[in-house]
């Protein structure tokens, strides 16, 4: 059971990289107050870093070397297409009925005319893609985010984001297609999770290299980047939208 959740979570994890939402961390510029478990988190970050350095990153680089941008785009589209059912359900939960209809239509068109999702035909028709996981639903319902945690292999997260991952895992078509035969299901889930992991890692190679090269505290850089992004994507009705989360008093140190 746990294995099942973990496996499919890995698949859904990717979503959180793009579709995460958050309750409002703060109007201030300090994010370390959300890191109650810093000692644990730093240790986990170190472990993930080693895993990445010796396995994930070399594999992602190899994947980049043997594929062309055209092929990678096809694969990324197919992965993203499998997230549309999850998005459709969450859009209903968020009251976005119109977009949910668009999402269902996109999934139908792209899965068929778009050759199992490798081409975004519906997008070319102007049917806008909006990926939405359970985390953004909880954000909209104003469920608090909780402290910052670093998950094994999956990296920066929060209790709400981690819980949402498990929920999202059950909304993956691959999970449902394979659910009848335990043996093949595990194989399919592991293989697809691994592919998604590699594809996503490839997409972030340049960014993480740049950040790491220019950081004196890489852990803190990743933490603040993750939390800033979550804060901004928060859609809870009680919080202000717009630039507010980095619109603190920027001149405060000026007059002392």
């Amino acid at each position, binding site marked *: 059971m746990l294995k099942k959740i973990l496996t499919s979570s890995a698949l859904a994890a990717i979503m959180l990289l793009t579709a995460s939402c958050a309750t409002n961390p703060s109007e201030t*510029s*300090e*994010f*370390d107050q959300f890191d109650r478990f810093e000692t644990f988190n730093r240790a986990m970050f170190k472990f993930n870093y080693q895993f990445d350095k010796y396995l994930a990153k070399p594999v992602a680089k190899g994947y980049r070397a043997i594929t062309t*941008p055209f092929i990678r*785009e096809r694969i*990324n589209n197919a992965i993203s297409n499998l997230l549309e059912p999850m998005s459709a359900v969450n859009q209903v939960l968020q009251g976005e009925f119109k977009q949910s209809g668009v999402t269902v239509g996109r999934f139908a068109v792209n899965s068929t005319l778009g050759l199992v999702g490798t081409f975004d035909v519906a997008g070319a028709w102007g049917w806008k893609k909006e990926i939405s996981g359970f985390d953004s639903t909880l954000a909209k319902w104003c469920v608090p985010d909780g402290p910052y945690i670093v998950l094994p292999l999956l990296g920066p997260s929060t209790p709400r984001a981690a819980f949402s991952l498990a929920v999202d895992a059950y909304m993956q078509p691959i999970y449902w297609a394979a659910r009848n035969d335990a043996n093949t299901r595990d194989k399919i889930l592991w293989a697809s999770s691994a592919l998604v992991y590699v594809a996503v890692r490839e997409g972030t190679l*340049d960014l993480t*290299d*740049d950040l790491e*090269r*220019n*950081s*004196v*505290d890489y*852990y*803190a*850089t990743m*933490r*603040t*980047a993750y939390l*800033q*992004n979550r*804060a*901004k*994507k928060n859609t809870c009705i009680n919080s202000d939208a*717009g*630039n*507010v989360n*980095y*619109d*603190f*008093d*920027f*001149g*405060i*140190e*000026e007059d*002392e």
Partner: protein
Amino acid sequence: MKKNLFLSLFAVMFLAAGSTQAAVDAAKAEAFVKNVTTEGIEQIINANVSQQVKDERFAKLFNQALDLDFIGQFVLGRNWRTATPEQRKAFIKVYRELNIKTWSQRFDEFKGKNFIFAGTTPSNSKNQIFVNSTVPMDQGEPAKVVWRVKQTADGFKIVDIIIENVSLAITARNEYSSFIKNNPGGVDALIKDLQAKVNQPVAKK
């Protein structure tokens, strides 16, 4: 019900009043950022000159367009107050050098791309405004780039760049305060580490 109506009326009036009182000329601020990016793309990225000339031009443009003294102070945060004048000077210097180095590399990524400007957003900070832009990417969604611009006696200055919701200034501030907190060497150790980053060879592409 009535109360809600009044509240929303009040909110609308408040918003309207706020926008007319904006101290910063939005159109001029946007034009300023537009000029900076155009100059960067035409005079540096697309120019047919040696890398050395490009680096010099970039450093010049960067120093002109950004208020790095201001950003550096903000980035050091509460540690600025306790730092000695020598530490402050050394920090601003190394922070400037590191930023010129990293941004000239990052700027190269904009080769063949352009900024599409999408208006401004008011800021709560005095004399500041956000200029919104997007950069179409080869794949996927366009990247969102927001510029925090400050009106100074000396014209407009960029004081922060927010790429895909992540602010350059807040990121550096959190990173450096975390470093100082965890490092017995404090600000001096930070300056030393940043200097090492400046000195390390440019990454090959």
